[in-house]
């Protein structure tokens, strides 16, 4: 399934920041602020998918 274009996902990730950051034309402000909220919300998606498998 994964190919060269798709980085391997670590636990807690659905779409890695490294992939997302390439999609912005440019970031006018502090990228760390954007990165933090991206990663936190991305992890919610991860946790939902894995909760379906493990918890329910």
């Amino acid at each position, binding site marked *: *399934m*994964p190919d060269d274009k*798709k980085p*391997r*996902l*670590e*636990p*807690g*990730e*659905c779409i890695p920041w490294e992939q997302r950051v390439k999609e912005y034309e440019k970031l006018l402000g502090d990228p760390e602020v954007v990165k933090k909220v991206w990663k936190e919300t991305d992890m*919610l*998606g*991860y*946790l*939902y*998918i*894995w*909760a*379906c*498998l*493990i*918890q*329910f």
Partner: protein
Amino acid sequence: MSEDMATLYDQRMARYVAAMHNEKPDMVPIRPFAAEFCAKYAGYTNQEVTHDIDKAFDAVLKCAAAFDWDAVVGNMVYVWTGLTDAAGTNYYTAPGIDAPPDDAFQYREPADEASAFMKADEYDQLIDDPTGFLANVWMPRVNDYIVEPGQPSTYRNNLAWLKGGMATLTYFTRFGEQIAALKEQSGTVHAIGGCLKMPFDILADKLRGYRGLCADIHRRPDKVKAACEALRPHMMFNALVGSDPTKQVPVSVWLHRGCAPFFSLKAFDEFYWPTARQIIEDIWDNGNGVQVLFYAEGDWNANLEFVKQLPDHSIIYHVDRADIFEVHEAVGHKFCLSGGVRNDLLAFGTPDEVRAQCKAVIEGVGRDGGYIMDAGAIMQDDAKVENVQAMTDAAREYGKY
């Protein structure tokens, strides 16, 4: 929270933690895993507590207030139809939908290859990208409203993801409130934090089915091992993300069908145990310092030689249908034990019989500490109220050190 309630909570937490570290507290702690029993006690049907989390939580609060229990779980009827029905999850039967309202929910296991949630030739996809496989292949298979990528999307699909995610967030937010309510209203400790399943059990339960996995360990053994290894870091992550930040209460792992005779000891050693052992050791060591409640469903005594390999105090060994005295002899010096009170006795026995068994377990297993009173398995609505009361009273009467 009143001062009295805070003191009671602290006493119970100290008692529970001491026992889990194989020490001798002031008395034997009581930590029943009560599921549909709570509904029965509170006057709700199984359908009501499976569908309505307010009633499910209320039932547990009523039990915690009525019985002198040190620790409980906020809701052991863990399948909430608010979540499963939002996405059309098809591997459960739910009371009031496709089961009678007085039944408990049931897991519907794939019977053959055609109905397996992961096909035999899909191991590599899971191994290469577990999260992607779950999102793109597994979720559409186990949820009637979710469509595969590449297929035309639907209104139902869009809403299934949205409602499922929102429902999950709602459930766990309410769970946090429930933990606080248990502490404030009855001084009751929440017994566990974080949920773990072993990779091999996940392969059997949710992906290949037990029958499919039995064939796979012979036909594609390397794939099974690689899949367990691919799942391992995710199991760790999910267990620790929900674990107790104070590291006082354990992560729970519900061990399903890895033990003999479901799998031979040779197969257990080769397929089940390597990742299971690694996960427990990593949760306990590597700076994590969290215990695992090793909930050994069924009879795991044939596998005790493996359990002995785990670090001292890394687990609380829960005994379901096995002979708890044998377990104590084999691993009681290493781990706290819990359970061992037969569910059939709680359902069909008399209070005197229950009291006698509790006395025997406390005297035989708990005499030096390191024992927590509980039924062998989760208590459903067949447990009689008077027998559960007898178990509670016996623990207090015979359990003082």
